[in-house]
């Protein structure tokens, strides 16, 4: 049996372990949260190094891709560098491939996303593939990176402006302590009430709200009118939360096992374990081919 472990800076309350069969091979996939404790995450990574088949880094991105440019988050790199033997991934390779494809599948096979659909992406520099795919499709997209990361009520409306601002800001923002730009640990279990109120209009105006689940959750107002959420890493508790807020449909980009949609870091780690080659040598085409063989499809859950 192959073992894949996701070490997350997120809450340990979301820990879980499942056994699945992928292409005839048994996998034990586990998630271990460190409640935002950076040093604890480093220790856990060192402890697992060489003892499991692949490691995913959760609750943090290491690489942000903006078209062909790659920006490295310094705190994420420190975690990655703690692992010397086992392949370690942050999910960014798969995210860029899988989420682009998911948007195309939803446009082709459902009525959820089409030309003109009003989409709010709570963050898009961590999901540039999805952002580009939405934009190429002709959706009316609001990129909320400045709104939700910096509290600046400035909706970015084009991929070009998103790219321009990303190139200006990311070289420095990636050096900031990660907890300043993203909710880690216990913050993932609460909402930022001031911003929920201040930015509620962006959620209410959208038909589809997409992006990182912890950000979506942290700023989500009550009284939504059947909007669609496009995300992953949701638990049964999260589904109940979304229902209570008035969400109509939940689409998760990664497979659901035992009620949990895993993070892309976990899935990428599993794919790396299947491919059995160094992460840096894996191409987007190989990921796509494998996703097809595994028949990974977006999961659509009606909540109303």
């Amino acid at each position, binding site marked *: 049996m192959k073992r894949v472990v996701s070490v997350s800076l997120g809450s340990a309350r979301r820990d879980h372990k499942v056994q699945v069969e992928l292409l005839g091979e048994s996998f034990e996939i586990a998630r271990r949260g460190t409640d935002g404790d950076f040093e604890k995450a480093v220790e856990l990574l060192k402890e697992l190094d060489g003892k499991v088949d692949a490691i995913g880094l959760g609750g943090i991105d290491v690489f942000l891709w903006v078209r062909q440019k790659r920006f490295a988050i310094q705190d994420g790199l420190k975690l990655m560098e703690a692992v010397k033997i086992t392949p370690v991934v942050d999910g960014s390779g798969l995210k860029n491939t899988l989420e682009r494809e998911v948007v195309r599948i939803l446009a082709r096979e459902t009525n959820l996303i089409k030309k003109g659909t009003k989409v709010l992406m709570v963050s898009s520099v961590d999901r540039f593939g999805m952002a580009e795919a939405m934009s190429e499709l002709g959706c009316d997209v609001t990129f909320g990176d400045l709104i939700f990361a*910096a509290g600046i009520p400035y909706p970015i409306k084009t991929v070009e402006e998103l790219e321009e601002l990303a190139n200006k800001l990311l*070289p420095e923002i990636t050096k900031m302590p990660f907890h300043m*730009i993203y909710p880690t640990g216990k913050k993932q279990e609460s909402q930022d009430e001031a911003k929920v109120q201040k930015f509620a209009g962006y959620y209410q105006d959208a038909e589809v709200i997409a992006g990182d689940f912890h950000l979506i959750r942290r700023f989500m107002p009550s009284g939504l009118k059947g909007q669609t959420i496009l995300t992953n890493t949701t638990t049964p508790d999260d589904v109940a939360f979304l229902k209570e807020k008035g969400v109509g449909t939940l689409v998760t980009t990664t497979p659901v096992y035992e009620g949990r949609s895993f993070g892309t870091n976990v899935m990428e780690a599993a794919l790396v374990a299947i491919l059995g080659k160094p992460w840096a040598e894996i191409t987007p085409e190989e990921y796509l081919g494998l996703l097809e063989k595994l028949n990974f499809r977006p999961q659509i859950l009606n909540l109303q």
Partner: protein
Amino acid sequence: MATHEEITESLRVFTEKYNKNERLKIMNRDWNRVVVVQATDVDSQHTLTLVDGVVSLKEGKASNPDLTVISDSETLADIFYGDITPTGPYNNGTLRIIGSEDDIIRLDFISLMIWGE
């Protein structure tokens, strides 16, 4: 070590750059804040006031600032002239900012928006 006059000039350049940036003014229409800039090694205090997206500069220290930016004179002049970004000095403790975390992040974004790339 920079002089009080050099810090004043760097802040004037920063203020001018900011006010010429229409996008930044739109971004900060909701953010009325008083920011005190204070040097640790020379007697130099300034106040930046943001109202309806426009920033103004005064010498001296306002009594109830929302944010206080504290560093040595050289670092302050370098930051406000755009020679260095605030991230490095902030991370290594050379630059201290007193205020809410949300305001600190926003101030950081603003300075990067002026000088970034």
